[in-house]
């Protein structure tokens, strides 16, 4: 697996995250759940930034960035803030795992950026999950 392929996979994950956060934000009332709405908005903005960084990185490697899909699977029903938080936490956990994979498959500046992205995803997951983990993005060690 080349670094380019690893970045394309990460980009696919970020496209999905942007889409899902858009859905979660739309389903959350800003007046009734102001804190949750603000957290979702911040995460949405953050993932757009991750996506844009990946698009630039892939173009710098001389490749065309993978396009977003028309739609992505979103767990249903999203009936209540606890469910929304759970979906967001799982989304960030999946992103952490993806970035962990990119860390393993890249070197130098690309790896350094992937490490930073993994850390950012783990901290965002904490916002929605509430409790820290032992090995964010490296689930094979989670049982230790």
């Amino acid at each position, binding site marked *: *697996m080349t*670094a380019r*392929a*690893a970045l394309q*996979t990460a980009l*696919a*994950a970020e496209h*999905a*995250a942007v889409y*899902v956060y858009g859905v979660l934000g739309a389903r959350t009332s800003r007046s009734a759940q102001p804190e949750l709405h603000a957290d979702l908005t911040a995460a949405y903005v953050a993932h757009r930034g991750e996506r844009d960084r990946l698009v630039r990185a892939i173009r710098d490697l001389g490749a065309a960035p993978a396009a977003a899909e028309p739609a*992505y*699977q*979103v*767990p249903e029903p999203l009936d209540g803030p606890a469910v929304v938080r759970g*979906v967001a936490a*799982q*989304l960030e*956990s*999946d*992103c*952490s*795992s*993806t*970035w*962990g*994979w990119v*860390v*393993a*498959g*890249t*070197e*130098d500046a690309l*790896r*350094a950026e*992937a*490490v*930073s992205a*993994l*850390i950012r*995803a*783990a*901290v965002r*997951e*904490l916002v929605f999950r509430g409790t*820290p*983990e*032992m*090995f*964010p*993005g*490296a*689930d*094979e*060690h989670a049982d*230790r």
Partner: protein
Amino acid sequence: MPEELQDPQVAPVRTATRRALLGGSATVAAAGVLGGCDAGDLTPGADPEPGSVEAEVDADTLLVEEVLSDVRSLAGWAAAAARRHPRSRRHWAQLAAMHEAHAAALTPDEADPAAPPGTPAPGRVPAAAAAALRAGRAREQAHQDRLVAAAAAAGSGRLARLFASMAAATAQRLALWPASSPSSGAGGRS
């Protein structure tokens, strides 16, 4: 999402040594809403020359030893802080548990993850709870920075990923760090 991370092909002895350092098998969690990925060998760059692979393994061995020493020291410091400051014992105990889990991940399965005899003491914990929190936070932030550097330096992709994960776990702890002594009732995300 690839189901397995695989290191570059090396001689069996070297492979066993590298895998022993990390313990267990590496699998990537399947993405829920994000869909699947193609499995593949995550070899960064071209296959290395045998001589450079040996040097890479030795460099990674030294890196693991350095990080493991750091982690053990932090675990000891957090445990000492838990004993010295019972009101914030839960915070320090959870931190120590994280470092102990990280030490275990860096230790071959057959070895004892605890610090070997003769390991230097972890350092003095301040008598005041607030000072201990400040000092502990500074130590953890420095540790996160070192883990980030170690992830960048690791020759093995799997080892880099482990270091990055440990850095992320430390970042989560820092985000939850108490703002002041728990006896004042303050705390939460910083």
